[in-house]
């Protein structure tokens, strides 16, 4: 297939939109922490962007999209440092290099989301090591399984834009790290009030906008499929937001953090499904995923777990729900594969299997990485530094 300039234009801007999501995560998170940690929280996402780009160029792309090795990992020497990638290759209408760029941003985004579990206490140096290892040992294999020709791909597991690869992986990784690193000093005793909700809303707004590049860009074309993904993404975000707002209203007031959390839950839920379901599926996935994430978040708080900014509840559990719901609502008229509603129990089973394995691998492997770093360099700053605040202690800055 020749170069399709329209598709190329769309994927170029989609890559820029997903890139924008990475610091937007920092903004979103930054508003929810205490004032003394806001710069540090933003920095974790900014650094994720830089690390992710370098790692992807040097080795990540090769591991994820190199020639398949036994279904579990990719490997192509040509791809190391992208040295052997021809400048003018085109696949499916878009330049190969563009596909590399687009995928690169996904890796960065996953790492940024994961920082939820360690904000306010992680040492910058350890975070850098952690990030590089995580991208290499957790993210790259998961990307390979789903999209690079790995076992999940062969099995026919559906993950349109990364519900499993990006959201399950980062959400459960955040949970694992939160357990390894332990609670913030004072957690559960003092109130940790979000210091700047408008900042979180602005960050959320850019996450929402960027998500259309994330999902509709994953069509890797500017066509009806991209348009359909756009529509169902909007539908799911809307019902997700309204559902969470309604739930928080029932037990109090319709608050804005709940609204934006619901929007993101809806977006996470529709991520794996965006190219496979119709608008009705989109509306329902938003509702269901928001309810699941709301319950998960409520449980997390009751359990006293300091997975501080709820990547697990929203991205992890939302991605899990989305993976399964994809197997429920997939419409064969759109993607050639039907879901449970069309009687395809098989696909439903595959989705569950894929999601469960991703959960286990992401959680387990991240736990191991975190544990080793903690035992060697130490993941955590001193208690004194935590008191003073990460901004001053780690960065010598004040917001």
């Amino acid at each position: 297939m020749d170069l399709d300039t329209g598709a190329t234009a769309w994927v170029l801007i989609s890559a820029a939109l997903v890139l924008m999501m990475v610091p937007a995560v920092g903004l979103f998170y930054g508003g929810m922490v205490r004032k003394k940690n806001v710069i540090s929280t933003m920095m974790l996402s900014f650094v994720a962007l830089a690390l992710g780009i370098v790692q992807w160029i040097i080795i990540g792309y090769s591991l994820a999209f190199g020639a398949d090795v036994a279904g579990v990992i990719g490997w192509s020497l040509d791809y190391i440092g992208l040295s052997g990638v021809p400048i003018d290759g085109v696949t499916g209408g878009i330049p190969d290099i563009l596909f590399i760029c687009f995928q690169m941003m996904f890796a960065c985004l996953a790492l940024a989301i994961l920082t939820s579990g360690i904000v306010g206490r992680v040492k910058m140096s350890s975070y850098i090591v952690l990030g590089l290892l995580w991208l290499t040992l957790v993210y790259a294999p998961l990307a390979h399984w789903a999209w690079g020709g790995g076992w999940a791909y062969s099995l026919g597991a559906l993950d349109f834009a990364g519900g499993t690869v990006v959201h399950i992986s980062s959400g459960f990784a955040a949970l694992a790290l939160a357990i390894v690193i332990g609670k913030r000093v004072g957690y559960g005793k003092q109130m940790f009030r979000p210091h700047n909700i408008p900042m979180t809303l602005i960050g959320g707004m850019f996450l929402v906008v960027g998500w259309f590049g994330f999902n509709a860009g994953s069509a890797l074309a500017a066509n009806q499929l991209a348009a359909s993904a756009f529509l169902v993404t909007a539908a799911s975000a809307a019902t997700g937001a309204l559902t969470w707002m309604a739930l928080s209203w029932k037990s109090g007031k319709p608050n804005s953090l709940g609204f934006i959390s619901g929007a993101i839950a809806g977006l996470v839920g529709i991520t794996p499904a965006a190219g496979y379901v119709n608008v009705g599926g989109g509306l329902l996935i938003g509702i269901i995923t928001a309810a699941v994430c709301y319950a998960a978040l409520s449980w997390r708080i009751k359990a006293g777990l300091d997975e501080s900014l709820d990547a697990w509840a929203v991205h992890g559990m939302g991605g899990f729900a989305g993976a399964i719901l994809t197997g429920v609502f997939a419409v064969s008229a759109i993607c050639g594969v039907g879901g449970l509603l069309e009687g395809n129990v098989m696909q439903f089973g595959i989705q569950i299997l894929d999601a469960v394995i991703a959960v286990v691998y992401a959680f387990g492997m991240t736990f191991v990485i975190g544990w080793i770093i903690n035992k060697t360099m130490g993941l955590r700053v001193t208690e004194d530094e935590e008191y003073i605040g990460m901004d001053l202690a780690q960065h010598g800055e004040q917001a």
Partner: protein
Amino acid sequence: MKMITAIIRPEKVDEVLNALEQNNIPGVTITEVLGRGEQGGVCLQYRAGKMQVKTLPKTKLEIVVPDKDVEMLIKVIREHARTGKKGDGRIFVLPVEAAAWVRTDEYITG
């Protein structure tokens, strides 16, 4: 002189300031503070669940006046800052030994 330190509800500040002016007390210094008292805090919503916060935004007014005005001042503040509900605030009267102007060399004591 006395310094009247009044901690009142932020939403009542404009009204009190207007009333002070009408009573020929223009000078005042205003600080945004957080307060805790009998009011018992407010219930904030989080993404899911709530959190009870014990300190609330209040506004502190500091007004230095001659001794004779103290009574009137307290009356005016009470009148315009009162809602009758807990959290209306407190007024403290502190002695001031001297007051000086920066602009001029004026200096008054007592």
